[in-house]
């Protein structure tokens, strides 16, 4: 299993540009999550999904959108990038079959908005 994969690893955006961060998991997990982590801080939940076709807002959803058309994929969309969205973005998944519903994290996407 590749686990949770994220692309791209790094990206620089100009203010106002849009982009999609990709996240894929091959563990057949029903739960998926998007977090952002600012320097020296903990992770903040942006959006989560409990299954294909179902998404919900987390702690800091403003400026982002998500979709979950398949079990495997959970892309995160930034429509109008702002400097405040400069952060490291982590995708995670979990579900039935894990022992403790522990989250498996991807390697992260480092995004800079200038």
């Amino acid at each position, binding site marked *: 299993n590749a686990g949770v994969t994220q692309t791209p690893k790094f990206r620089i955006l100009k203010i106002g540009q849009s982009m999609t961060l990709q996240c894929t998991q091959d563990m057949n997990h029903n739960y998926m999550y998007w*977090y952002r982590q600012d320097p020296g801080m*903990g*992770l903040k939940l942006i959006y989560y999904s409990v299954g294909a076709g179902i998404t919900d807002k987390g702690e800091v959803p403003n400026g982002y959108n998500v979709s979950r058309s398949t079990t495997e994929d959970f892309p995160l969309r930034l429509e109008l990038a702002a400097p405040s969205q400069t952060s490291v973005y982590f995708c995670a998944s979990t579900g039935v079959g894990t022992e403790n*519903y522990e989250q498996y*994290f*991807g390697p992260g996407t480092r995004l800079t908005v200038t």
Partner: protein
Amino acid sequence: LAKTTQPISMDSYEGQEVNITCSHNNIATNDYITWYQQFPSQGPRFIIQGYKTKVTNEVASLFIPADRKSSTLSLPRVSLSDTAVYYCLVGGRNNNDMRFGAGTRLTVKP
């Protein structure tokens, strides 16, 4: 949402046992306590989870008193490679109500 409080940082030396305590005074009946470890430039990694009393696995132990208002992560005989940030989370098993605080930055010295 159950809020957690942990020390911001701790220092230790190789070979010592490290105990990191987390306070969660408003933990709910259905909440579990989960600890994650994060190295620089990596996503967090699950360490251990418990509901009550004591849980032990190959890397750590988790002690939870009867009132469940706190928990202690115990790392036996730490090494330099245990230098990382450790997060205590409290919430339901579907994770959508769990919140990562700033964590505890553990530095292990030779």
